[in-house]
């Protein structure tokens, strides 16, 4: 049995249509105008112990809602979740002992006091033995350089420092599973790099299973082997990043620098993406043409001074998948699961 098993998970929200105007706050008490919205629609997946899964999707796709169900905050409308043999919302406390949670948008540390004081509270709440607490704290002091700011009130920390402090807080009680909801949001490049190193390190050396959501595809590429794409509550892709690239990312771009201005570059099965001076970007499908085919065609009429082949970035693949989801929605009035 996998460490995390999610079966046919579904979450439907009834949203109150709020009343406005005179005494609206009080009139809302017996307001019964609801609209229904399916945030998570029949999702199933498994995560093995020690995996580092990237969980991505556009805003409002259902990522946070699924995380809230996996962390025991919300109860699903239908479906099952089993994490380390437990049902999060039924065995909320035992489950909480097993997991660490970081919400990038919202610190779990006490805002006005230094991180080290927050850690003390967490030590009591999670009943962390002194020896484990000291050992972990020292490890994180090394890995995250906590000592630089552990005695500074959280409100005075930079976003990167705050996120480091939050990661340490989530790891103090040696959780088996870590949920990271946008841990790199708003953080500068250097700080991001440091956070990624830490995430990679605890996954590798401690065998912590990690579920990570992010909008930064570089996080995914640098950290995860596997990723799930969710949109409109449905799972669009679940598999390795390598497969994703070879399945969807068959388009290559040839960047050629010519001696003269580009003209008459009408090569079948290609498209000219961009021209800039004597440089031209030609896109082609590597399943249909090879780079040398394209090059030869160009060389018939021009002298080539320089050329490179660009692979698509995961970001553009993902954008394409979101887009195809959107197009399908427009066509059918609903979204079908991609055939993967």
């Amino acid at each position: 049995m996998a460490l995390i098993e999610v079966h046919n998970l579904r979450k439907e929200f009834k949203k109150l249509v709020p009343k406005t105007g005179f005494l609206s706050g009080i009139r809302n008490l017996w307001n019964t105008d609801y609209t229904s919205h399916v945030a998570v629609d029949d999702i199933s997946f498994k995560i093995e112990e020690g995996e580092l899964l990237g969980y991505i999707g556009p805003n409002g796709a259902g990522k946070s809602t699924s995380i809230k169900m996996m962390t025991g905050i919300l109860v699903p409308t239908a479906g099952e979740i089993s994490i380390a043999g437990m049902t999060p919302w039924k065995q909320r406390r035992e489950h909480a002992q097993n997991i660490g949670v970081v919400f990038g948008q919202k610190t779990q540390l006490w805002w006005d006091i230094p991180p080290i004081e927050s850690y003390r509270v967490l030590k009591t709440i999670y009943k962390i033995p002194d020896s484990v607490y000291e050992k972990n704290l020292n490890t994180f002091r090394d890995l995250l350089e906590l000592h630089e700011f552990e005695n500074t009130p959280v409100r005075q920390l930079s976003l990167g420092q705050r996120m480091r402090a939050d990661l340490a807080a989530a790891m103090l009680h040696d959780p088996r599973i870590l949920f990271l909801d946008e841990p790199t949001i708003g953080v500068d490049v250097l700080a991001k790099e440091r956070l990624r190193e830490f995430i990679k390190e605890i996954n590798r050396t401690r065998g912590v299973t990690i579920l990570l959501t992010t909008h930064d595809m570089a996080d995914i590429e640098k950290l995860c082997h596997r990723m799930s794409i969710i949109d409109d509550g449905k799972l669009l892709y679940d598999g390795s990043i390598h497969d994703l690239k070879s399945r969807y990312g068959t388009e290559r771009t040839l960047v050629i620098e010519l001696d003269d201005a580009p003209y008459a570059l009408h090569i079948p099965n290609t498209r000219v993406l961009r021209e800039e001076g004597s440089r031209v970007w030609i896109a082609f499908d590597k399943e249909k043409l090879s780079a040398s085919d394209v090059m030869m065609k160009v060389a018939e009429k021009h002298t080539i001074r320089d050329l490179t082949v660009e692979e698509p970035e995961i970001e553009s693949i993902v954008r394409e998948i979101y887009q195809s989801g959107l197009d399908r929605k427009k066509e059918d009035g609903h979204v079908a699961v991609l055939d993967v």
Partner: protein
Amino acid sequence: MREHLTVYLTMIRAAVITRLQYRADFLMGILGVFILNAGTLGTTWVLLNRFHELNGWGFWEIVFLYNLWLLGHGIRAVFFRHVTNLEQFILDGTFDQLLTRPASPLVQFMGREIHYLGVGDVLLSALMIGLAYQNLALDWTWWMFLWFLLVALSSAAVELSLLLMLSCTAFFTTRSRALVDAATQFSWGVVQQYPIDMFNNVLRFVVTVALPFAFMNYYPSLLLLGKEGSDPFGYLTWFTPLVALFLLWLTARVWNFSIKRYQSTGS
């Protein structure tokens, strides 16, 4: 139970450290309370100077009534001022975080903050109750003093329970502030400084049964001031601690029920 207490005390420690960051607030808070309450008492004094008594209650009796309310309110405000802010805790996601931790959400929420403002209330009301005691030439036995302490805690518990139960509507509608503010205003306007037997039966029913704020000061005062005979319902004065206990129990039930609803609706 011991576990709850440990978690609560650890959280209170963090809350105290938080407050210590803002020392200036402390003095300003206490000063503000004195000015605010001097204003209220001043109005009462002017009123009573003109009419000499209010439905059989003299000036110092009204002072006692008002300050017993203030004492309960102050104790509540020191430790549980933030209960009326539950709506904000839910909206900004702080509440969700409490649910990801292996401890009772209620205990965690209760221990989240403490506030100086209530300290001023407690000091001032203790002082004024002392003055009223002298001026009314009260002569309590030792068990009456114990009863007074119990009643003061009950007063705090009554306010805490009522406000927290009303705040729980935030779990259903996300907006609870309007309702809680209305109730607070009601408590201030009606119960705080008037002997409620001067009101009609409807209003009296409301503050005794529906929103029993009258157990913060009016009913307990009857016994403490030896006036339990002046009101046909005067015997209710004996029930003050029981009412408080019942309300606390009811609040825990309402809280648990609301959280269950919140987890399944996520509103």
